[in-house]
Every structure is written in C-alpha cells, then in structure tokens.
C-alpha cells in the first residue's frame, strides 16, 4: 500500500527517463558512443566559462518569450505567433541601430528596446484583432504572421539593409558598438538583458498573481462564458494580453540582435518562439518553473551544438530530447489525471 505514494512522487521523472532512453536508442542506431555524446552535451552547455555564458545568453530571449506566453496561455490563447513577434522585435531594434548614427549608448539602447517592444506588440495586435474582429483562429494568423516576418527579414537583409560591400544573404552589416548591449568578457551574454528578463519575470508574476487584470485573464482562460457573466470584457483583455506578450517577445528579439549577434541575420530567431511554447507547456503553465525549464532547454540546445561538432550528429538531437520530453509529460505526466481516467472506465468499483 505504501507503493502508491512513492510511485506518485517519482512519477514526473518517468518521462525524463523515457526520453533519455529514446535519445540513447537514437545514438546507438546512429553508431555514436553514448558516453561521448552525453559528455559533449554537458560540456557544450557548461564545459567552460564561454559555454556557460552562451547558455545564459540563449536562455534570456527564450525565457522572455515564455514569460510573455504565460499571459496569453492564462487567457486561453494559443499565441503561436510569438516566433514572429520576436522576429519583429529584432527588426525594430535593428531599424533604430541602423538609422540613428552617432548617438551615445544611453540614447540608442533604450530606443532600440522600445522600438523592439513596439514592433513585437504590433505584430501580436494583428493576431489578436484578426481573432476578435475576424474570427480567424490565432494559431493560423500567428503562423502566417511568423512566416511574413521571416520573409520581411530576408527582404531587408537582401534589399534596403544590405551591407554596402554587396549582396550577402546572411545579414546586415554589424551595428555600431554603441548600439550593442554591453557584453560580459566578449561573450554573447549581456548582464543588462538578464536584469531586464528578471524585471519582466517579476512584473508578469505580479500581474498574474496579484492584480485584478491577471485574475480576469485567468477567468477568461478557464471559462469565458462565466467570465463574461461576471463582467469581464473578453476582447479588451485578450488584445492587451497578446500585445504584452508580443512586447516581451520583441524584447527577446532585441536581445538576439544586440547581444547574441551584432546585426540582423537571416534566421535571427532560431525557433526560440516555438521552443518557448514548449517551455510553458512543460512548466505546466506555472510561472515558478518557467525560468528553470527555459534554462534546461537552453542548456540542451547549446550542448547539442557541441554534440554535432564532436560526433558529427545533427544538432536537432537537442530538439528531439526536449520534444519527446514534453510529449511524454503531456501524455503521461499527470498521475492524478491518469488515475481518474482509470476510475471512470471502471465505474463498478
């Protein structure tokens, strides 16, 4: 009889073990030495000062997106367009960086960040309005807007923002030094971005936990009919939640161009927005877990780059690990849910 509580306690670890086993199987099939592979994964994430800083630097925009998504998920919205909102943020920041020449950093950086947030919010607002006014589901509008953002980036890089030395499809010319976020030890990690992310984390946590607005979002997400009868205006709150998420994703986009890179690049996002959706799902939609899960994701993905260098295996292995983990957790992670289902299917007991 004591078995059940123990099983219940270690249950959430099952998906972790199962997904590691899945990766192990893949490694063996592809003839890689698992020990080498997992070592590479670890060292790629934490093996040296620079690598740790790289993991931190990748973590920040991912966490920013995930924090924003907490708002939209709470309101019951599937903001898949967060990827595009991040890209628009990158474009917004780049626009300021490329057009305001000769200004000091303390002028440039706030303007860049503001432009990025505004651009992200604008892209999110389009999605929100298409939903509330046009009844187009946010999944489709978000996806279309993401692809449009990618095309816009490519257009800018190969057109108006082309470097003077000629047509490179890879990126704009590097921004002036004053436009970039100050970075630690020449790495890609900017302490300022960590500060901004922490502030965002606290603000959103407070908004969700301690304000009437957060409560309204929660009500809307759980039962929009009852929320309406209790006086919550669904359109207004949905649009604001989407725009706030877009602003945070935009901020993440600014961090991508101003500290991870030094210019606007072709695949500026690296799929961070989509990953952030997985982060929030794996966090079971709880704010407390979001930064930790995001950090775990960042470590796995950074590690898998080193993995590719050392074993010649494709770096998507990191994505597979996180994807399988999220899938198994979604399906089997909730012990109580599974027990309830078992009970329902055997009503005689």
């Amino acid at each position, binding site marked *: 009889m004591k078995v059940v509580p123990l099983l219940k306690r270690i249950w959430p670890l099952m998906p972790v073990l199962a997904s590691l086993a899945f990766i192990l199987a*893949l490694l063996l099939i592809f003839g890689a030495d698992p020990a080498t592979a997992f070592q590479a994964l670890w060292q790629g994430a934490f093996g040296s000062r620079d690598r740790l800083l790289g993991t931190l630097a990748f973590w920040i925009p991912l966490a920013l997106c995930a924090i924003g998504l907490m708002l939209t998920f709470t309101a019951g919205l*599937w903001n*898949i367009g967060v990827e595009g909102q991040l890209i628009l943020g990158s474009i917004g920041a780049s626009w300021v960086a490329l057009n305001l020449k000769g200004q000091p950093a303390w002028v440039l950086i706030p303007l860049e960040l503001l432009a990025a947030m505004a651009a992200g919010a604008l892209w999110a607002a389009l999605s929100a309005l*298409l939903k509330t*006014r*046009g*009844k*187009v*589901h946010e*999944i*489709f*509008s978000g*996806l*279309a*807007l993401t*692809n*449009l953002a990618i*095309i816009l980036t*490519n*257009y800018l890089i190969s*057109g108006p923002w082309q470097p003077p030395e000629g047509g490179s499809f890879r990126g704009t010319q590097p921004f002036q030094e004053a436009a970039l976020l100050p970075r630690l030890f020449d790495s890609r990690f900017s302490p300022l971005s960590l500060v901004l992310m922490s502030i965002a984390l606290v603000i959103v946590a407070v908004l969700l936990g301690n304000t009437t607005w957060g409560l309204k979002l929660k009500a809307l997400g759980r039962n929009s009919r009852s929320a309406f009868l209790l006086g919550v205006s669904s359109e207004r709150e949905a649009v604001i939640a989407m725009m706030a998420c877009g602003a945070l994703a935009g901020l993440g986009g600014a961090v991508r161009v101003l500290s991870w890179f030094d210019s606007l690049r072709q695949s500026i996002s690296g799929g961070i927005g*989509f*990953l952030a*959706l*997985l982060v929030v*799902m794996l966090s079971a939609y709880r704010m407390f877990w979001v930064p930790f899960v995001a950090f775990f994701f960042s470590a796995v993905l950074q590690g898998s780059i080193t993995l590719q260098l050392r074993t010649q*295996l*494709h770096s*998507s*292995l990191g*994505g*597979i690990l996180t*994807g*399988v983990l*999220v*899938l198994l957790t*979604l*399906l*089997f992670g909730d012990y109580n*849910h*599974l027990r309830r*289902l078992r009970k*329902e299917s055997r009503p005689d007991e």
Partner: protein
Amino acid sequence: MNDTLLVRILASIALQAAPLMIAVTGETLTERAGVVNLSLDGKMLMAAMTGFVVAYTTGSLILGFLAAALVGALFALIVAFGSITLKHNQVAIGFVLTLLGADLSAFLGQNFTRLPGPSVGKFAVPYLKDLPVLGPIFFNQNAIFYFAILLVAAAWWWLFRTQPGLHLRGAGERPEAAFARGASVTRLRYLYTVLGGALVGVAGASYSLGIKIGWSEGHTAGLGWIALAIVIFGGWSPARGALGAVVFGATKSLATVFQQNVQGVSVVAFNTLPWLLMIGVLLLVSSDWVARVANLLPPRLRGGFLRLVQVTPPRALGVEFGQE
C-alpha cells in the same frame, strides 16, 4: 499550342496542388469525425523524409510510400490516443508533434540530404494526352496527380454517398445522436484519425518523391500548415478543399515561373502570397463582415452567396464524447 508558357504554368499548378489535395483530404476525414490533428506539418516532414529514405535505400517507390503512410498513421495514433483515450488537449499534443516531427526528420534524414534519388514519373494517358491544352495539363501528368484526383473523388463519394460516410459525419456532427443510431463514436474517431494521418503521410512522400525530389531539412516548407488552413477554407469538403489546394498551388508555381522567366519581379512579393492568402481566405469564410456584405445583396442572391462563401465546422469538432 501545347507548349505555351500558359499551358506549362497550368500543368505545374496542377502538380503543385496534388500533395496539398492529398493532405487536405486526409485531414478533412479526420476533422469530419470530430478530431483536430494539428500535427500536419510535422507529419508531412517525417513522411517526406521517410518516403525518400526508404525509396532511396530499397529502390522501391511503393515501399517508400508505404513507410511514409505508416509514419503518418503512427503520429496520428499518438494524437488519437492522447485526445480520445487520455482526454488531453488535442491542440497541445498536435503542436508538440509538429515541432518534434521537424527535429526528428532533420536528425533521421541527416545522411540523406541533397542526394539524387528515385522519383515518381509522368504517366501519359493514351489518346487523351493529345487533346489540345487539356492534354498536357491533365493527361500527361505525374502519377501523383492522378492519385490525388482519384482520392478526392473517392473521399467525396465516401463522405456523401455511403452509409459509413454518414456515420463518419454523424460522429463529428452530433456524437450523441450517432451513438443513438448505433455508431461507435470512439472507434470511428480512432479509425479516421489514423487513416487521415496515413494520407497525410502519403502527401509528404509524394512531395519528396514527386515534386521537390530528395530530402533536405524543412523540406516541405510549411505545407502542412497551409493544408490545415485549406481544410477550413474547403468547408470540410474534399472537393472544395481540392479547389483551395489549386489556389495555393498556383501561388507556389507562379513564384517559380516568374522567378525563372521574368526579370525585375521581386521574389519577396511571391513568397508572401501563400501566407497573405491564408489569412485572406480564413477571413473570408469566418468573419462576420461577409454576412454584412451579404445583406447588401438582393435577398434572392443572399442565401446562395452565403452558402458559397461561409463555412460551418462540424459541430462536435474537438469536443470530447463520453456516454453518460
């Protein structure tokens, strides 16, 4: 006359539309039974990769297509199990599988990128191929095109002209009423989710074995998402869905053709087309202002216009069914 630019463009549109038609038909069957399988994009990537790799290593196209169908069915089975049996959110599972499919296909197919491989060839229908204009567009086509057309017709017949088709639509429309008429809703939903997944698998393989031959990371380039939107635009009917597939196929092949033949036309404008079109058609079929526009028409035309434009999803789409 049979080799003018226009005829070549039309023939290419028909071919580009074929995999979309197959995928749209598969997902339409699934959604008609009441299940949303959002994992289309991931499934198509996995299937495109599997189809090519299997055909490349075995040299058999048939095995390639079968393997792709199996992979699609397997992904669909996960969605069915998660949503019907475990009663989880269909959208969440579908989305995770989409991302997972992208990564998994990139990893598993890493040793097979950019290789020349076997491909489905053209098949000219005797006599008909010599028809002016129609011949080269419809009767001297890739075999995939014929399959797509036959599939759309068969699915339409199955849905609207057979007893099992009535059961299928009933399960997605009003499961409790279908149950009262003797249908096993759970079994039907499993069946059509898996069947729909297999068809999407075939669609993925037909892309890598017939249209853009070979494999590369992200090979199908958002095709799955576009198919999902076409299912809605098509009003959950295979025939209208096929029409939608042609419209989207046109944007794709026009982009290619113009890039090759016309100077000074921005590629960017053409790349945006499918996505702008996606938002546009969804607005058209679901927003309220269509009804408002309809009110400006004379009353005699109003009903027909609305029937033509607006669509209603199966009423129990995404709704769980549990008998008491």
